[in-house]
């Protein structure tokens, strides 16, 4: 049994070039059967191009795409047995909801009674069983998106490809659809590749996240790994709010490293055991600390930071009050830091002298 047998999709050295411009640099990626994988990145990072290459909507310049172990480079899209959901839903405006959903079955020569049953089931699954006779234009955006999903899954595709399916919806609906989409994916156990620029969608829905930037894969990992242990400055900056500080290694001992942050002083950082970098003394690096990991307390009467943590003295320059949390812009040493802290009744006032607790496990060493 070969290693790729349980992979629904494999990308091997895939490259996409448009003339001199490389949209996607050499990419290797495997997607496990039944898993939910997200391609996350800003617009123009190559995530949609990657999806379109898997779908067969864009040709592959170099490398190989395999679906269920079978090379599909030269297989036209209509023979790949995929389900694709587009950002703008792409429902056929001149067909009823029923005909939209039944469309793929028609081209699979499905018998009439089976078509009827399966379209009915798909409409049940997306909770719109009564919309069958309506025109797509009579449905709301969220309903149209559900129908687009029903149309894609009714053919029992090998892989479900979702191209920013939620971004056209308004914020509340988007969160509902997120849960809904995950539920349907889980029910069907269908391998799903999801493209988004929205980090919260990616974190909430994915089994694995592929962070992309400028046509390159920056990091692949489960949501916690990508969020807590970013592998690059880009990932640290793209997901959430991070303080990214230029630093230099002072000493390294096992999973601990002491670093000197310019204009701030020495801090302890955590190194993953499998991290292959030498991180020798004197090496310049970047230190990333998430804004919400910097805990603030009034300078007077501050408790000792405890082991494996440091306390920095700082002053609150600006407070951005957001209700349940506040974002503080701090001055510490010669640096500016951001901190997001939960608020108990009142935020800390502007100009207050504070003690900033920095734990070693929240400090991630990135390549400079």
């Amino acid at each position, binding site marked *: 049994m070969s290693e790729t047998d349980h992979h629904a999709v494999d990308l091997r050295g895939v490259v996409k070039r448009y003339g001199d411009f490389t949209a996607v640099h050499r990419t290797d990626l495997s997607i496990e059967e039944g898993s939910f994988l997200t391609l996350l990145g800003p617009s123009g990072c190559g995530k949609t191009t990657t999806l379109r290459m898997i779908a067969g*909507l864009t040709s592959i310049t170099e490398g190989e795409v395999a679906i269920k172990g079978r090379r599909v480079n030269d297989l036209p*899209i209509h023979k790949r047995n995929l389900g694709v959901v587009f*950002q703008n839903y*792409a*429902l056929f405006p*001149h067909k009823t909801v029923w005909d939209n959903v039944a*469309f793929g079955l028609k081209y699979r020569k499905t018998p009439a009674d089976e078509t009827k049953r399966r379209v009915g089931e798909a409409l049940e699954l997306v909770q719109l069983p009564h919309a069958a006779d309506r025109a797509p234009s009579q449905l709301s955006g969220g309903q149209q998106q559900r129908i687009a999903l029903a*149309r894609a899954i009714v*053919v029992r595709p090998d892989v479900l490809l979702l191209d920013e399916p939620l971004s056209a919806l308004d914020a509340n609906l988007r969160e509902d659809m997120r849960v809904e989409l995950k539920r349907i994916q889980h029910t069907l156990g269908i391998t799903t590749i999801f493209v988004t620029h929205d980090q919260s969608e990616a974190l909430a829905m994915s089994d694995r996240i592929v962070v992309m930037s400028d046509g390159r894969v920056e990091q692949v990992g489960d949501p916690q790994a990508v969020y807590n242990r970013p592998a690059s400055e880009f990932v640290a900056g793209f997901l959430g709010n991070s303080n990214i500080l230029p630093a230099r290694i002072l000493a390294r001992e096992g999973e601990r490293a002491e670093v000197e942050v310019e204009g701030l002083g020495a801090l302890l950082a955590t190194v993953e055991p499998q991290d292959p970098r030498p991180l020798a003394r004197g090496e310049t690096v970047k230190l990333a600390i998430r804004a919400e990991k910097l805990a603030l307390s009034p300078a007077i009467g501050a408790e000792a930071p405890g082991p494996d943590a440091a306390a920095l003295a700082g002053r609150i320059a600006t407070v951005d009050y957001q209700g349940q949390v506040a974002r503080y812009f701090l001055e510490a040493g010669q640096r500016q830091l951001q901190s997001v802290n939960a608020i108990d009744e009142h935020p800390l006032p502007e100009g207050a002298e504070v003690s900033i607790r920095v734990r070693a496990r929240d400090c991630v060493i990135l390549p400079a």
Partner: protein
Amino acid sequence: MASLDPKDNPSRPWTLLSPALTAILLLLVIPVCFIAVYSFWLRTATGADVAGFHLDNWAEVLTDSFYRDILLFTLWIAFATTVICALVGYVPAYFIATTQYRHKAFLLLLLMLPFWISYIIRTMSWINILGVSGVVNVALQWVGLTGEPLQMLYNQWTVIVGLVHFLLPFMILNLYVSLYGIDRNLVDAARSLGCTGWQAFREVTLPLSLPGLAAGSLLCFVLAAGTYITPLVLGGPTDAMFANLVFDAIITQLNWPLGSALSLVLLILLGGLVILYNRFVGMSQIAKSFG
């Protein structure tokens, strides 16, 4: 300060439309009313027009098979022209609408280019192409395919060729607008669901371009059915179209009452067609291509 909300100022649209409406009233509605009145007058053998309410012109126009045959011939020419325009025009319209070529506006400009030259000149250019000493005949004789020049001009087919030449841009423009408006994702969606390229065209592109096809066809048909220059320049003696009858009646015979009745027949017929179109497709489709 004047409010911009149209609800506060219900007369504003009418104020803005009034110059156009005045022009239409003075230059179109009132003259048509004159013509309607004229059509009930009578022309005597002496050449004088007798005012009154006489149905003689209408009786002649509606019963004489001469007029009926020419009307049917006119409708046939218009129909053939429209069908050919649709078939020939679809491909370039599809190409311009879907091309990734950067200078799409330039392609559209090329489409408009013929309008910079007078329609009559363009029509007459066919004499230099298809005439006895025209390009085609010279080429054929030079190659040796024929010894004698072929008589290709002055029949109903050259009339159709001239009309297609004149009307093709209208068809392409209308088709282009509706093809350009089709979301490319719809085709991708159809393909992903199992359609070949051709099947996706049949399922998605073609049905969604029908409004443009209908708009282009209406324009082509109406303009072709109302033409009199093309049959005059490119048609033979038996290829007169309905508008030529009007021209003859009014300009040659100075028979205004008969000419009026004839032109009203054409107006009512084509007007009915436009109303039918508006009922099933809607005028807004035509407005799009000029928007």
